[in-house]
């Protein structure tokens, strides 16, 4: 345990937490907003894949980071729209429709990857731009804290700022009020002329937007290429993170940090003669355990009568 402890206590480990948290925090925010409106978006996995792919491809062809960002975001929003269209307009079960969209994303990105890169595994042969790293002035000078907080990819900072943005959106804007009202009692919203389907659609579009940021970070920040199914379940871990955080901004942030911590630990275990299959297990097992503990707490709250005193 010695070497592990050493590396966990190092600032690099703190840095790694934020690095691996980012692709969970973005989709978790997305899931949270859709859940508040009462239509949970579990197509995050697919949304991230499509955006990750689109970003890399547009960046390769145009050599323009802004266009890549724009295209990636647009792709994510379109995924949100498709889920909304099938669920709200064509009355598909939102879970089944999301499963179908995830399959579509997995298949179509590999399909396109082969057509463009003649490779079904990764797009390493196509050079992609990446989002820049940002060194925070002043803060970077602080020992330890500076090493942990400064020097991240710009999207990591965007993710953290998004928490504030989402807080503002939910509690301080009419759209946020309507999103909450629609989630709590759609008939109530309907009765005062709020277009419930439109609000749910908006929430899915916003969630697609955040999913897209998560995908873009993966392929153009975390690494600089697209790989088949590179999301590796993060879209679903995000569902767990959103649940754990009660779908509320601060809660989602904290639970994402928790998952970041677990993932970072797994990464740091890898070189320590632990079978890689085992370290790779850790995030998934932790998700199951965390989700279970959370649901135990929720059901206790619901059922117990006096034990809480």
């Amino acid at each position, binding site marked *: 345990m010695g070497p592990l402890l050493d590396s966990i206590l190092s600032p690099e480990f703190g840095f790694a937490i934020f690095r691996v948290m980012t692709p969970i925090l973005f989709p978790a925010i997305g899931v949270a907003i859709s859940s508040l409106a009462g239509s949970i978006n579990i197509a995050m996995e697919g949304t991230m894949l499509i955006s990750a792919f689109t970003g890399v491809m547009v960046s390769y062809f145009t050599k323009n980071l802004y266009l890549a960002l724009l295209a990636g975001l647009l792709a994510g929003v379109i995924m949100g729209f498709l889920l909304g269209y099938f669920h709200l*307009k064509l009355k598909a079960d939102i879970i*089944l*429709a999301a499963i179908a969209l995830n399959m579509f994303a997995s298949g179509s990105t590999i*399909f396109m990857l082969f057509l463009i890169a003649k490779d079904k595994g990764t797009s390493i042969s196509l050079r992609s731009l990446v989002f820049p790293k940002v060194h925070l002035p002043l803060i970077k000078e602080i020992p330890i804290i500076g090493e942990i907080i400064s020097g991240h990819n710009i999207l990591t900072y965007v993710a953290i700022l998004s928490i504030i943005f989402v807080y503002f959106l939910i509690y301080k804007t009419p759209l946020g009020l309507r999103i909450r009202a629609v989630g709590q009692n759609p008939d109530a919203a309907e009765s005062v002329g709020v277009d419930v389907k439109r609000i749910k659609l908006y929430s899915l579009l916003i969630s697609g937007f955040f999913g897209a940021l998560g995908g873009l970070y993966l392929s153009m920040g975390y690494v600089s290429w697209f790989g088949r199914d590179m999301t590796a379940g993060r879209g679903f871990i995000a569902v767990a993170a959103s649940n754990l955080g009660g779908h509320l901004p601060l809660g989602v942030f904290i639970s994402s940090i928790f998952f970041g911590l677990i993932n970072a630990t797994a990464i740091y275990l890898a070189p320590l003669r632990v079978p890689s299959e085992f370290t790779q297990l850790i995030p998934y097992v932790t998700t*199951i355990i965390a989700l279970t503990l959370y*649901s135990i707490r929720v059901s206790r709250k619901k059922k117990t009568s006096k034990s809480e005193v």
Partner: protein
Amino acid sequence: MDKFILKYFNAIRISIAITIGVVISFFLIFLISKNPGASLSYLFLSPFLSSIRMENLISAASPIIFCGLAIAIPFQARIFNVGAEGALFIGSVTGVVFAIVTKMPPLIHIPLTLLVAGLAGGIWGLIPGFLKAKWNTSELVVSLMMNYVAYFFGLYIINYYFRDKAAGALVSLKISTSVWIPTLPFFSRTSWTIVIALAFAFLVYFLLYHTTLGYEIRTTGFNQHFAKFGGINVFKIIILAQIIGGFIAGVGGMTEMMGIHHRFNWQISPGYGWDGVVVAIIGRNHPILIIFASLFLAYLRIGGQYLNLMSDVPYEMVSVIQSVIILLITAEAFLVQWKERITVKEAERKEISHGTTS
């Protein structure tokens, strides 16, 4: 005509969804292939062009049938357990390990190995099942995570304890011939696996529609409150549906090892569990329809493989088509307006004609 449409509306709807999927594939092939005519024939005709390919089609359908059934049972209880992939994987690993370490005559060894594989799959269903029943933990997320756990854990077992070091790839030791599922008479390569799969489909049909347990599973799916109120032990049913599903997936995975590979040789997760979701949706969770849906999907798969091999169009086009098809099928309102117009027309004709205001 109207009456016919109303009666067979679901069948018509599914056919139209499939047709749209096929039309999209035409469109894609014309868009990307240098020789679209040939590509189309690889995809749609080649599976029929030789008896070997037909046999491949049948063999490819069997694991899909198993997984379709494994998904359909929890889905009938409206439990979104998508863990067939993990159950299939862990079932195969456990079955192979059991087959390697035991020695028995085939007549006992085969069923016992399948049973062991099924039980391992059942445990994979039990975990999300229990968590769902006890604390309402999302079975969707848990079963998904369990898929990853099965994959990494299974590979660990095979790679560290049962790896065939003589083989070039990461595969297990061979299993003894006493657990090989033999080839069907009159066939050159199709094993008895397809017969086992069909038998399972009919068993599941009987289970769901003609037994008390099936009634309990379906009633839980229709309305859980109602089931509870009527005296059904919903807790038990939610767990049981997922155990049975996992069991069937585990058996399905193991039949692949016993009928075709004769060792554990999956380095990536084979994806049959997801195919199971596809065919359960196309077949509307009905075991008999799942057989046909699986044959259809296997047909696309075999066609896709030839397409991949012989032309410039990649195999993944099949994934695109299938996801479009299930997306359309899950869209309850897809074509429903058309149906409603007919229903309303019929009702209006009946009611208004003999309606006189008093």
